[in-house]
């Protein structure tokens, strides 16, 4: 290995992805953040370094995607030879270093190189530069300058040459003295601006690490263990075996430790108070104690949960409950232009829409019409032959595809089921009483996974494969969507779409409300069907 001898003088470094628009590359911001965080883990696992994501251009490591000549004397060359470069630390406090990726490359965030150039591998290499390592002449080392395929995907283990290199700069991790805090990319450690008044008023950025009287300072865990401890940037218990009391903050408390007020995971305040959320719930409750989520009979108008929520008019659906799977002996495929949907997801950059035992796919050139809708088992052959429908589906950040059918879920690696599946959804921490989930998605707003069922929703922690302890919460947080949705997903435009009956809502993630109170009909928009309606929806049919 080869080191620069100029290194960071701290081991707690921050990073930030500064390029967030990936329209040309079909990359998604949260996928890239996830991959970068995994690449950072490669180094932190074997050194004293820790990395926290911040949303600031003052982070220690700034990550950009650029094209061709971008002003630093290291122009990119389009798709091909040069993939990325990074700059070395300067040794000066307050000076950031850049990591640049060639935006013209065919990047893949899946962890393997089957579909393109493996962003994870290249990111891990470039971050090595930003930590002070030069190129190594050891073939097989991560810092070897020529691209080679990594083994084990995201579970890649740092080769010895690189391990020695990083440890020569920052020392080896002492497991006894330092409890490892799981790094999870989708919960960035936001730096909260604080105002200091002296003779002039200046705004400085400092992390949220102040001791709080409710949560005594524990030097073994400076981040705080309690999910509501403002020092805890993760929002959940870093150590899942932790039995410390769980007492959510009362909604009337004005403490608000998060950067925006629009995130449903924030503490409820008066504006966002939800009747289904019990702020006084004690920690003795287990996941199984949560109330049974049952389907309500279909009603044309849903009563709002609070005064700010509009009355919701639904497009009639022919199906209100799917707890008991129906049999479809010889039933014809659904009408492409006149049907509701069971589940929708973007899988491998293509939109898949599922209904009964059929699915459609929508690629860059629109709806694939020839031979579609097709039976689900034609593509995913490991499903049982008597498959009648799926309830929800989403592509996990690690590239696996999770299908939910009733109280079980299947995990597919591509088109083949992962051995050992299906498994009960209770394995994910969902209550025994839950018979199905309505929708699942990775929310583009924060990169977290959410499950929906009836009038409740859960946030799911992908790193430990469990729903988080502070859930379920009430659907009223998703203002205007109502309950008992059919499907939800995040489209390529980064926006969230909820489906119910034969219509859909586009959701405004910033305002946490639907963009249009009235549903829009799904067929014309998603399937390119001829618009038989007046401009805006069903009431004007």
């Amino acid at each position: 290995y080869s080191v620069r001898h100029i290194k960071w003088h701290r081991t707690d470094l921050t990073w930030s992805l500064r390029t967030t628009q990936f329209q040309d590359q079909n990359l998604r911001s949260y996928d890239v953040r996830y991959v970068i965080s995994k690449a950072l883990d490669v180094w932190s696992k074997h050194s004293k370094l820790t990395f926290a994501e911040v949303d600031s251009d003052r982070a220690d490591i700034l990550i950009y995607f650029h094209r061709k000549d971008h002003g630093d004397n290291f122009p990119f060359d389009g798709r091909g030879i040069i993939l990325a470069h990074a700059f070395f630390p300067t040794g000066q406090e307050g000076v950031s270093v850049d990591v640049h990726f060639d935006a013209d490359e065919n990047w893949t965030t899946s962890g393997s190189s089957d579909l393109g150039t493996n962003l994870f591998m290249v990111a891990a290499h470039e971050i090595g530069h930003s930590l002070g390592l030069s190129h190594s002449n050891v073939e097989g080392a991560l810092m070897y300058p020529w691209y080679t395929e990594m083994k084990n995907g995201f579970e890649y283990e740092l080769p010895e040459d690189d391990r020695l290199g990083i440890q020569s700069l920052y020392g080896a991790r002492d497991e006894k003295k330092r409890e490892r805090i799981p790094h999870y990319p989708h919960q960035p450690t936001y730096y909260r601006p604080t105002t200091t008044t002296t003779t002039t008023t200046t705004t400085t950025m400092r992390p949220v690490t102040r001791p709080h009287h409710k949560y005594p300072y524990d030097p073994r865990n400076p981040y705080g263990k309690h999910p509501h401890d403002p020092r805890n940037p993760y929002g959940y218990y870093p150590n899942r075996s932790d039995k410390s009391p769980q007492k959510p903050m009362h909604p009337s408390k004005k403490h608000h430790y998060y950067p925006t007020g629009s995130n449903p995971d924030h503490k409820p305040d008066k504006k966002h108070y939800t009747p289904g959320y019990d702020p006084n719930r004690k920690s003795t409750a287990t996941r199984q104690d949560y109330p049974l989520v049952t389907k309500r009979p279909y009603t044309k108008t849903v009563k709002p949960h609070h005064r700010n929520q509009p009355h919701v008019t639904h497009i009639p659906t022919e199906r209100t409950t799917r707890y008991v799977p129906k049999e479809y002996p010889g039933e014809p495929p659904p009408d492409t232009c006149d049907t509701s949907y069971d589940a929708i997801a973007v899988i491998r950059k293509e939109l898949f829409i599922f209904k009964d035992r059929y699915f459609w796919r929508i690629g860059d050139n629109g709806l694939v019409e020839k031979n579609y809708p097709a039976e689900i088992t034609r593509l995913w052959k490991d499903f049982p032959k008597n498959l009648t429908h799926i309830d929800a589906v989403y592509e996990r950040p690690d590239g696996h595809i999770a299908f939910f059918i009733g109280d079980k879920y299947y995990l597919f690696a591509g088109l083949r089921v992962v051995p050992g599946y299906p498994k009960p959804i209770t394995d994910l921490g969902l209550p025994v009483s839950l018979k199905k989930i309505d929708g699942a998605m990775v929310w583009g707003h924060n990169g977290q996974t959410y499950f929906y069922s009836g009038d409740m929703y859960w946030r799911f922690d992908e790193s430990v494969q469990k729903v988080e302890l502070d859930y379920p919460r009430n659907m009223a947080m998703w203002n205007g969507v109502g309950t008992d949705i059919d499907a939800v997903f995040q489209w390529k435009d980064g926006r969230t779409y909820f489906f119910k009956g034969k219509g859909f809502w586009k959701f405004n993630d910033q305002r946490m409300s639907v963009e249009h109170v009235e549903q829009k009909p799904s067929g014309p928009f998603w399937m390119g069907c001829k618009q038989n309606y007046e401009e805006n929806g069903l009431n004007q049919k």
Partner: protein
Amino acid sequence: ASAKLGRIAKREVLDENLNVYLTRFGYMPSATDDAVGALRTEESVRNAIKEMQEFAGIPATGKLDDRTIKLMNTPRCGLPDKSRQTSGRRKR
């Protein structure tokens, strides 16, 4: 692959690409860094190739053999392997 190799093996393209490549990744001084750069001899280019081959761990023949051409067509990091260029960059 052989078609690709065939393309890159075209001599006139190769000379140009070779100089750019060796300079870019620190095996030869750039013309602006070194007045001698404009007067590169065949010997100096051969030594630069040899240096790159040694670094990459392939036989150091000093010639543009198939393995070297394949290496040069392999995607890679844009930073130089030898620190002849200044690569530090300050922000803020």
